[in-house]
């Protein structure tokens, strides 16, 4: 029987991506931004698709089915209804948005055809794509499903159940009532960029107190059945480009923060209050979902499921026993969801894909890497075994060197998970400042994240037992045990928590080996893991980008394949990345 290829595509809103299935198994998945080098690229993911097809060694005409992650016409219809309801205030939004709808977003079928595809195309509702992206990648045979984001076509939140290879969504909450849009509106109010910096607000929250609970109750009412409604008096995203109305300033008594201006106690308290409200809503929804489904397992998806602080509380504060969230829980992940929905639900295939790691992007072997290094006449050392490289990297990290780690296939999702990571010493209290000053140039309140060998998690963290799968994808925040906080100051956040990644040997042997070698030297089975990128750019994808990033920042070494490249021996290629940084 010939192989069946299903391509999943997300595009035109933010985080375009592509995913290819072969007989129901993921062959490749990647976000377009990694190829175009444009952060959160929302264009048609041409290069991501080309990569996926090349990984399977097929041409576009060979693809049997395509799953697109939303119904563009239904979304356009909602947009028009929204404009009608808010006439005449929506004039500017109408004039601004219509050209791209008419030229691009409503032309998806012809765009797909124009790229050489002859496949039957299915348009999967946005939240169904999210639901499929989490449930159909989970280890569960049945589970409750909750999806939460800004907005799809009409739905902003849906709940339902997955059983076998079927998904039933029973109810939804409609635009404009949205947890995601509340979070984005406050992100904008705090002077950060929307759809880009919500995680920064999450990181700011532990610095503040829930001082504005009453004000947030005024912004969003939570009903007894777990649903909620925004008080639209304070928001303007439904008719204007601005997320919030002038009434919000009257409510909080302070003007919106200007970008790059100082973060004050007010902003910290706002972030804390927002986080508290978000957790109240998420946990309320989950408790209601459990009442409805009586399931022990739950799968979460949508951009709001990237709120790892809330995720860390789910198993303790709801009746659910097991949790799954896929690494690309946002819109990029719905490309995978759309493909799986087509394969399992529409085509009725019983065989299910189970995600056990996040390494679905491009990889480069030693021949390709050596070819690049020799062509550019880069000075490097060749290491004769991966274990020797891991040992050397561990020694460098223990010596407080900053090491770029470029190994294997690139991660799927927004987090660096040991394929395109920067590793450094969590025991050094100065390492946060060193990384910020020399490499990342981030806001000072933002913590760095730990990676830990999974078998050690309960020695260092107040974590759920058994360890939930989302810890593999850095989607859970847990308190660090009080007796251990002083040993890993560089990854301990101000409230004593850490957004950890767990690694098992079978998932990523080389990465695991570095952690274990570091443990032999330091007694600590933890490293700092931060994303391998220049500020304002996406995570690196190719050897050339990794080398460029090292030479433009203060990274000391680059461990790429079986090669170790010292920055100090290649200073002729040094440049200043801060001069072009755009974040």
């Amino acid at each position, binding site marked *: 029987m010939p192989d069946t290829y299903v391509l999943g595509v997300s595009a035109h809103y933010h985080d375009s991506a592509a995913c290819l299935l072969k007989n129901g198994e993921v062959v490749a998945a990647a976000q377009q931004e990694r190829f175009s080098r444009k952060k959160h690229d929302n264009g048609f993911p041409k290069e991501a698709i080309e990569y996926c097809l090349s990984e399977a060694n097929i041409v576009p005409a060979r693809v049997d089915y395509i799953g697109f992650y939303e119904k563009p016409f239904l979304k356009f219809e909602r947009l028009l209804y929204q404009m009608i309801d808010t006439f005449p205030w929506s004039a500017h939004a109408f004039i601004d948005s219509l050209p791209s709808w008419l030229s691009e977003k409503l032309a998806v079928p012809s765009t797909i055809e124009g790229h050489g595809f002859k496949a039957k195309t299915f348009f999967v509702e946005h939240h169904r794509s999210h639901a499929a992206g989490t449930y159909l990648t989970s280890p569960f045979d049945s589970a409750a499903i909750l999806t939460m984001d800004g907005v799809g*076509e009409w739905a902003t939140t849906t709940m*339902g159940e997955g059983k076998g290879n079927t998904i039933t969504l029973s109810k939804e909450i409609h635009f404009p009532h949205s947890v995601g849009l509340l979070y984005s509106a406050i992100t904008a109010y705090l002077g950060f960029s929307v759809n880009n910096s919500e995680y920064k607000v999450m990181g700011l929250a532990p610095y503040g107190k829930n001082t504005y609970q009453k004000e947030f109750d005024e912004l969003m009412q939570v009903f007894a059945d777990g*649903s909620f409604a925004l008080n*639209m008096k304070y928001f303007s995203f439904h008719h204007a480009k601005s997320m919030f109305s002038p009434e919000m300033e009257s409510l909080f008594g302070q003007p919106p923060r200007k970008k790059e201006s100082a973060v004050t106690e007010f902003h910290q308290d706002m972030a804390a209050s927002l986080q508290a409200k978000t957790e109240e809503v998420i946990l309320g929804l989950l408790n209601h979902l459990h009442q409805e489904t009586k399931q022990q397992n739950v799968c979460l998806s949508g951009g709001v499921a990237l709120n790892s602080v809330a995720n860390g509380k789910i198993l303790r504060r709801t009746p659910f026993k097991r949790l799954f969230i896929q690494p690309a829980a946002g819109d990029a992940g719905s490309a995978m969801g759309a493909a799986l929905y087509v394969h399992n639900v529409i085509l009725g295939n019983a065989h299910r894909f189970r995600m056990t790691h996040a390494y679905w992007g491009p990889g480069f072997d030693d021949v390709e890497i050596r070819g690049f290094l020799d062509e550019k006449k880069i000075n490097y050392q060749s290491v004769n075994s991966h274990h020797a490289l891991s040992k050397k990297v561990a020694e460098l990290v223990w010596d407080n060197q900053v090491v770029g780690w470029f190994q294997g296939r690139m991660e799927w999702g927004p987090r660096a998970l040991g394929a395109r990571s920067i590793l450094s010493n969590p025991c050094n209290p100065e390492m946060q400042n060193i990384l910020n000053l020399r490499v990342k140039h981030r806001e000072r309140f933002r913590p760095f994240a730990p990676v830990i060998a999974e078998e050690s998690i309960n020695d260092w963290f107040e974590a759920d037992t058994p360890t939930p799968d989302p810890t593999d994808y850095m989607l859970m925040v847990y308190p660090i045990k009080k007796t251990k906080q002083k040993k890993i100051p560089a990854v301990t956040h101000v409230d004593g928590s850490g957004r950890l990644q767990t690694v098992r040997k079978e998932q990523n042997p080389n990465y695991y080996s570095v952690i274990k070698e570091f443990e032999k030297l330091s007694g600590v089975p933890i490293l700092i893991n931060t994303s391998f990128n220049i500020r304002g750019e996406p995570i690196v994808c190719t050897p050339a980008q990794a080398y460029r990033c090292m030479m433009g920042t203060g990274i000391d070494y680059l461990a790429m394949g079986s090669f170790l490249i010292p920055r100090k021996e290649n200073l002729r290629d040094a440049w200043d990345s801060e001069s072009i940084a755009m974040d």
Partner: protein
Amino acid sequence: MDAGNAFKLVGMGLPIATLVTVMYGFFTGTWHDVFIYVIGLVILTLFFSLVLPRFLPRAETWAIRDGIRSTGERINLILVGLALMLVYVIGVGIVFLSTRIVGKRFMDLHPTHSSWKKCSSVMHDEEMF
């Protein structure tokens, strides 16, 4: 001002001058008098964008073309904006008035006890765009 910016201004100015001349002629009814000026400006524009690049260094050449392209994009933006404004006021405005008359709203802005809605089954046809 450097040579590049100067040529960019020339590139921006030529289409604008042509357009203004045409409109002057049209609105004052003297188009048969200004016609010769319009022809002259068009020839100048073609000269600067097609002939001169053969002799000038690249940077200045691109600056002229950038200027012409930039003006073209702005004119396009204004025309599209005006057209869409017309569609908005007439199209969306009429529907708005109709919905207000019959008391219909598409967004439920003020739910009282619950904001849950049954999942729409109409669009279960996944082949539908």
